[in-house]
Every structure is written in C-alpha cells, then in structure tokens.
C-alpha cells in the first residue's frame, strides 16, 4: 500500500470490486454530487458573508472575524441549552455578535477608517483578547448542542438533513442580503455612504451611524455563521480560526461586490474544493483551494467582481 503519507482516498480503489457489482442509479449519484458541492458552497458563503460586508464593502481587514463567529456559536449554544428552540438561539447568537461588533466599531474601528492596514493590528489584538478572555472566563471547552434533524436516505446513502438546511440557509442569506442592500432604504444609504462618504454627508446622512450599523451587520452575519455551524462543530475558544482563511480567500477572490463577487467566488471555489476532495482527498482539496485563489487573482487582478463588471459592459 503506497498511501502512507499521502492524502489519497483509498476507499474507492479498495472497494471498487464491490462497487462494480452495485447498480448505480442516476438520481442518488447526482444528489450526492450536488450535496457535496452544496455543502462546500454553504460553508464558504455563510462564513464569508460577514467578512464580505466588513472587508469587501468597508475595507476593514477584520482578523477578529473568527471571534465574532465564535461569539455567535457560544451564545447560540448557551441559549439552546437554556431551552430556546434552535432557530431562536441562532438569532440570539447573531444579535449578540452584532451588538458586540457595534460596540467594537465605536471603541476601536471608528478611528481606523482612513488607514485600513492598521485595522489588521487592531483586530488581531481584539482577536487575542477575545480568544484568551473566553478561555479564562468560560474554560477551555463548552459542551456542544448536537446536530438536529437527523438523517435522510437517498439511494443507499444517508445524508445529514441539517447540512441541506445549511445550504438552504446560504441561499436564503444571499437573497436576504440582496433585498437588504438593493431594496431597502438602509441598503441604498449604506452603499452610497461607503462609495461616496463625502457626498452622503452632504446629503445629510449620519455617516458614522451608517458605518456603525454596517459593521454591526457584518459582525452579526459572522455571529449567524457561528450559530448555524454551532451544532456541527467543536466548541472551543479558538474555533473561529477554522473559518478565517476560507472567508478571506472567498471575499478577496470575489472582490468588492458581495453579489457579483463573493457568491460566484464561493461557487467556483466550492466546485474546485468538492471535486479535488472527492478525487484526491482532503489534502488536495485544501491545497487546491489555495492554489485556485492564487491563479484566480493572477488571471483577474481586482477579483471576480471587477472582472464580471468589465465583462458586463
């Protein structure tokens, strides 16, 4: 066996004899591919939505993104333990992270809008404080809350229903954000403020408040990500770190626009990751994702959204 040291999946090769004997039905096979893609897509979209708002729109490089996710997950778990139904608990997590985000914006981020690179240092500091603070106050781990909804059988394989719910949530999240930014007064003002702050001020917009709310929204979305994934993950103070690389990669590949950028970027990266993971194992899924990022940026400097916009014209 030559797999030692390699991230190869042997399962297929080893059980191919048995597999050949099986009747492969079309629908379960397609569903399986869709499920894997949807799972990767949901993870990327949900974990990057908050960052897309804070980094993509506001230009703040928020290294504490993972800690907002952790905050959302912890509050969700605590509320669910306290007896709240899960959807409500997740909402609590999102709101809590949003409130923390707004407080942080007021105390720290507000002073950094004109020098976004310094936000790296400040938010890294915040991330250290949050991780270690939670460790000291709440201990090294927290009891999880179990994945609800059980499993469903498609063809011969069983699938976690909750992960299908996660995919639906990702789609719902994109629709919700679209409505928020393109169909509501707040959205229009927020976009105007962020594109032309001076103009918005001249038109009587309280830009500070808009910035605060937008940052709060980004933090809240991160909290939502934490809440949604809390039932499927280990609850530790450093859990946010799992999300941060994928989030940044998706947002940067996407570029400044969430809908033209982050969503298609998540789709592309999800296909790459799911395919590489299925064929070559998790190692290549992980490395392939990062290499894809480098190639995409090289081919489309300015990110996907700049590319799509130019192409649209």
């Amino acid at each position, binding site marked *: 066996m030559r797999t030692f040291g390699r991230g190869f999946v042997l399962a*297929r090769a080893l*059980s191919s004899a048995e597999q050949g004997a099986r009747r492969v039905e079309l629908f379960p096979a397609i569903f399986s591919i869709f499920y894997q893609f949807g799972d990767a897509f949901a993870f990327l979209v949900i974990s990057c939505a908050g960052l897309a708002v804070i980094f993509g729109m506001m230009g703040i490089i928020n290294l504490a993104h993972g800690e907002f996710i952790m905050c959302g997950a912890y509050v969700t778990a605590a509320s669910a333990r306290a007896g709240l139904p899960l959807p409500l608990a997740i909402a609590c997590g999102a709101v809590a992270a949003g409130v923390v985000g707004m407080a942080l914006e007021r105390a720290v981020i507000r002073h950094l809008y004109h020098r976004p690179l310094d936000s790296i240092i400040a938010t890294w500091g915040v991330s250290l404080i949050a991780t270690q603070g939670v460790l000291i106050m709440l201990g090294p781990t927290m*009891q999880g809350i179990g*994945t609800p909804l059980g499993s469903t059988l498609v063809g011969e394989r*069983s699938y976690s229903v909750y992960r299908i719910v996660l995919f639906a949530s990702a789609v719902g999240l994109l629709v919700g954000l679209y409505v928020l930014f393109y169909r509501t007064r707040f959205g229009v003002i927020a976009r105007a403020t962020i594109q032309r702050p001076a103009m918005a001020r001249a038109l009587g917009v309280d830009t500070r408040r808009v910035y605060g709310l937008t940052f709060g929204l980004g933090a809240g979305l991160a909290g939502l990500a934490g809440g949604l994934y809390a039932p499927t*993950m280990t609850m530790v103070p*450093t859990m946010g770190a799992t999300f941060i690389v994928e989030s940044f990669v998706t947002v940067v590949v996407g570029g400044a626009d969430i809908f033209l950028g982050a969503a298609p970027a998540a789709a592309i990266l999800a296909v790459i990751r799911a395919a590489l993971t299925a064929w070559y194992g*998790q*190692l290549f899924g992980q490395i392939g994702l990062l290499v894809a990022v480098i190639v995409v940026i090289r081919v489309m400097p300015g990110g996907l959204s700049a590319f799509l916009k130019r192409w649209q014209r």
Partner: protein
Amino acid sequence: MKTYSKRHVLAAMLAGTCIAGLPALAQDGPIKIGVLEDQSGDFAAATNVKVHAIQLATQEINDAGGIAGRPIELVIYDTQSDNRRYQEFMRRVLQQDQVDVVFAGFSSASREAYRPIVNQFDGLAFYNNQYEGGVCDANMIVTGAVPEQQFSTLIPWMMEEYGSNVYTLAADYNFGQISAEWVRQIVEEQGGTMVGEEFIPLGVSQFSQTIQNIQESDADFVVTLLVGAAQASYYEQANSANVGLPMASSVNVGQGYEHKRFTPPSLANMFVTTNYIEEIDSPASNDFVERFRAMFPDEPYINQEAANSYIGINLYKQLVERAGSTDHDAIRAVIAEGDVCFDGPSGNVCLDPQSQHMSHTIYLAKVEEDHSITFPTVWENIEPYWLGDAGCDLTQNDPSAQYTPSSPPPAQ
C-alpha cells in the same frame, strides 16, 4: 535621535528576567522542576489539567517531607501551544532557572522542538503524553502510552467483535500517519482488510465527502485518529449523517474528553484504549479523583495525561531517592536496574530501561449511547516493547532520535 533607547529597553526587560532565578547551588536546597505546558491556545483543553496534576503530586510530596528531605519547587511557564515558546522556555529553565528536571510538552511537534535543547544542555525531560512512539533518547523519559500498547490491544479486539474490514481516518501528520501504519500492520497480521484509509490535514473541520467515502466502503468499524478541535467536528457530522459504525481510537476520550463535551449520542459506540481516565472504578483511581477534586474542585476532567504527569513526579521522586542525587547519570543508572515501578491511580507501572518508556495497564473504554463509560475489558501490564525490539537500547548508547516502523533504527 537616541538609538541607545533600544538597549535600554532590552536591558530593562532582561534585567527583569535575571532576578527571577539564581542558580541553585545548595545540594540541600529545593529540587526544582520546570513545567512547560500549554495553558492557553489550541491545546489548553487537554493540558491545563496536567499542570494541576503536577501541582497535586508536588503538594503531596512536600507535605510528606519532600524528595529525600528536599522540597520540590515548581517553575511553571505557559507555552501557549506555540513551538517557539517551548524553545525559548526550555533554554530558560535549563540555563537560567537551572532546574533539575523538566516536565514538558503536549504535541509531538513541541517535544521535537525542545528535544535538541535538552540534548544540548544534557538535561532531563519527562514527556507525559500518549504519542506516536519511537523516541529513543537518554535525556527523555516518556510516561505516556505508545501505539504498540494501544493498538495491539484495541485492533484485534475490535476485529473479533465487529469484523475484519477496517477504515482508518487519521490526521495527516506524524501522529496520524504513524498510528495508521500501526493499524495497517496489525490488521494485516490478523488477516483483516483495510477497506479505506484517509488522511485529513490539520484544521479541516468539514467532513461531508469523507463521510460519504466511509459509507461507500464496506467497513465494519472506523479507526478515528483525528486530532485537534477542528477535526473533532467529525463525530457530530458523522452522527448526523447516520454513519452508524463502531469507532476505535487511541486518542479520543482519554485526552480531550470528547464524551463530556459533545452531545450524546455523537460518540456512542466508540472504543478507546487508554491507560487512565477518571471513570475507572478502582480504589486507587477513586482515591486519586477524590484528592484531585479536593485541590481543584472545578477541574472539568481528569484525563490520562494528568495521571501520567502525576505518576511522572512520583517516579522522579523514587529515582532521585534511590540515586541519592539529582545527577542524570546516577538517575539513569537506577533506571538501568529495571525495577523502577510505581503503584498509582492507573495500577502498577514500570520504566523500561531500554527505551525509558513506561509499561501500562490498558483499559478499553466504551462510550455508551448516553456517553457514559463502560470498560468491556482490561489488559494488565502491557510493555512498550517496540523500541527495544527494534534495537533501541539506551543503556548501551544514546542515538537521540525518533524512529518509526518504516524508518527503524539502523541495524547494529
């Protein structure tokens, strides 16, 4: 401008550090033990308790008059789950604090980071973790369990009970790969089949594809050698996808008490070989848990590493008392006698002179539906035989290397 401010700052910082410890000159001063463990960062969940175990053992020994009349003084640093801190602080305890022995390290990477420094200063370090095995180094004493102790017991039992098709899911680094190698060898020796083997990079937390691969295989049970908080998400995800296969592990429960942290029944039907966990219902164990909780009432869980650290301090006491000094050569001479044993919370354990690893009583812990623990079987006095068989003999020479089954010691 004044560039010398740099030196001022540096000098001030370092001057501060100088005051901390003067060389322990007096032979009858306290015996100093350096403790380098991860009290913050990724590994804190499993390692805070090790520090507490060391403090418990120290207090008990000091209350009973110390080691050969000399009290133990602990010098504790938080290594923050960061290899660089191990390098910095290992130099510090050996050079500056001049400790007699060091208890250090959780991850294998941290051990490999500090080992060159221990060798450089000819120090003595206890590594109290279960790990992938193979460290043949006279400056190291290992009290944790090693693969031959955990897998030569676990895998045959599982195959007998559940069938011979095995799927291994392992973290893609040294521990996972070497452990998987052990599993593969034992499965083949026992006439079983590896139906799958998959390695997961550290930090991966999403397992949908992996779960599907397992479901497609004809595995009778899954050997899960997953490490770290991110990878532990597998259990919840596998459970929600209704994988429903028994699991075997050498690393879960006994270390990260996943059965306490996760919601039942995500870990149900997991079998773990461990040399100690707090559920072990023996007089020695119950007594140990009682004393532990008396001193640290809020301790979330007393794991195998805590027991091994506690045992380590007591072994060191015995070594020093029998050697009549803290001199390392004298201590090694005592180890070479081959009868350094201790009756502790996990039963009777002995140090193997050839490898300076420890024999263990191995408990098979089963996680039930409600995440309570039962013990289907127990193996007494399992030796850490592999290193000695492979040709490591620290009583003869000291290669200071780490070997694995696929890269064994060079033939003598």
